[in-house]
């Protein structure tokens, strides 16, 4: 399974090229990259639950592979201390058509945001640190997939 949790940065081009090369019928590769937003903070620290994190990401990826006709999916999530502007997460999927690729990538992010055990702590410019609050909009974003019909899987 193409799931990794790591402190190191990742090479987006290499990851997307690898997905595109999985199968000659890959026609669409969609990627999401999450970055540390820099306004007012000096660092973002990512904590996670080693062991469960990998299992959770693999379960999310397996669910996406079951729901959409994907030729591959990659999830990379960084942990540790990250600077403003740094990459936090990469989600990327390969499919024949763009509809499935867009939907699956968005599904992966919505589920990752609500089901994968990561926690963010921001350090402000005055040196104080605070844990980032979970967003209700992330929960509603994930919930909308419960009854989702894959209407556009051949787009």
């Amino acid at each position: 399974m193409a799931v990794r949790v790591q402190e190191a940065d990742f090479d987006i081009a290499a990851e997307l090229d690898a997905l595109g090369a999985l199968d000659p019928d890959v026609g669409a590769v969609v990627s999401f990259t999450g970055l540390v937003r820099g306004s007012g903070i000096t660092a973002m620290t990512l904590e996670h639950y080693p062991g469960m994190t990998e299992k959770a990401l693999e379960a999310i990826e397996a669910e996406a592979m079951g729901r959409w006709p994907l030729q591959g999916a990659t999830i990379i999530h960084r942990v540790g201390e990250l600077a403003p502007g740094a990459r936090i997460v990469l989600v990327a999927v390969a499919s024949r058509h763009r509809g499935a690729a867009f939907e699956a990538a968005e599904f992966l992010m919505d589920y990752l945001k609500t089901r994968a055990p990561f926690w963010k702590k921001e350090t402000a410019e005055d040196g104080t640190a605070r844990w980032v609050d979970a967003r209700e909009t992330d929960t509603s974003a994930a919930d909308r997939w419960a009854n989702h019909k894959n209407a556009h899987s051949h787009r």
Partner: protein
Amino acid sequence: MKVLYFAWLRERIGVGSEDVDPPETVATVGDLVAWLAAREARYAAAFEDISAIKVAVDQEQADFDAPITGVREVALFPPVTGG
């Protein structure tokens, strides 16, 4: 049984994980939390708002009703904020 705490729960309790040996009457995650809260003020403070706490049992999402008999690890943490 191993109990793990993450994010601000870990900070308030002061440890990331600990081995505990609750009595047999502690049958669910909810019982475990009540038992820990009764032991020491720092647990009671950390578990004050139970609605803000999520649960995993043996590294799978669970809830406070989940039985803990025979499980290896229980994790307590705030809602996740990755991605």
